[in-house]
């Protein structure tokens, strides 16, 4: 779990999820939950705005752009995202991380 997790107090409904963000060596969850059926574009827009202003565990970066970041889990079969809760993480989860493909692309 990210270091700012204990600061997260807002209860999460069944139709919501946490958004975990990695940026400039920091890793933290957005304090506010997001809709579990959010699109990648929506999630990246919310994440970019949050990083630009900063939040617990994530220093503000007014120049942040998330062009080369991706959302996990990827869009796939219905019901495959967000990541389901686990024993140590009792909530659904999206994660934003850098893309890692090399070569001619996918």
């Amino acid at each position, binding site marked *: 779990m990210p270091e700012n997790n204990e600061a997260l107090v807002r209860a999460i409904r069944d139709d919501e999820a946490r958004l975990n963000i990695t940026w400039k060596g920091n890793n933290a969850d957005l304090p506010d939950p997001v809709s579990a059926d959010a699109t990648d574009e929506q999630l990246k827009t919310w994440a970019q705005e949050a990083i630009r202003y900063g939040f617990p565990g994530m220093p503000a970066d007014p120049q942040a752009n998330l062009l080369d970041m991706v959302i996990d889990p990827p869009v796939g079969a219905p019901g495959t995202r967000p990541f389901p809760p686990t024993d140590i993480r009792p909530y659904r989860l999206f994660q934003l991380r*850098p893309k*890692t493909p090399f*070569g*001619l692309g996918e």
Partner: protein
Amino acid sequence: MMEAGVLVGEEGKPLYWHSPPNRTSVSLPDSRDLWWDGFWKFRDEISGFAHSHPGSGDPYPSNEDITTFSGVELGLGRRLEWWIISRDSIALVTWVGPGQYDYQVEHNSGEGFIFPWLDKLREISYNSQS
């Protein structure tokens, strides 16, 4: 030939080999494992990442390579050395700025340099069947 990669630490020490089952002769697909088990796990130790390209001659980064270099550096919050190898040449790609995708490419044959990861990276790249 199948592309492969390796996370490189200080003094060229190989830290994490990357040869996923879905690699091809011209690409290494996006990999959650490479980010979390590689770049993020070893973020305090890594100096760069090396990957292979098909064929011989001086290799150049693709657009996909450059945007991945930039994304990973933004995720980690620091710059890395990006090595690309062919069968007989090596390129070192580094950010020079000022733009997000302004990287320079320097080539050499590898002669006179010691790359502890080079022989194995060529082995798992060019001795693999596509």
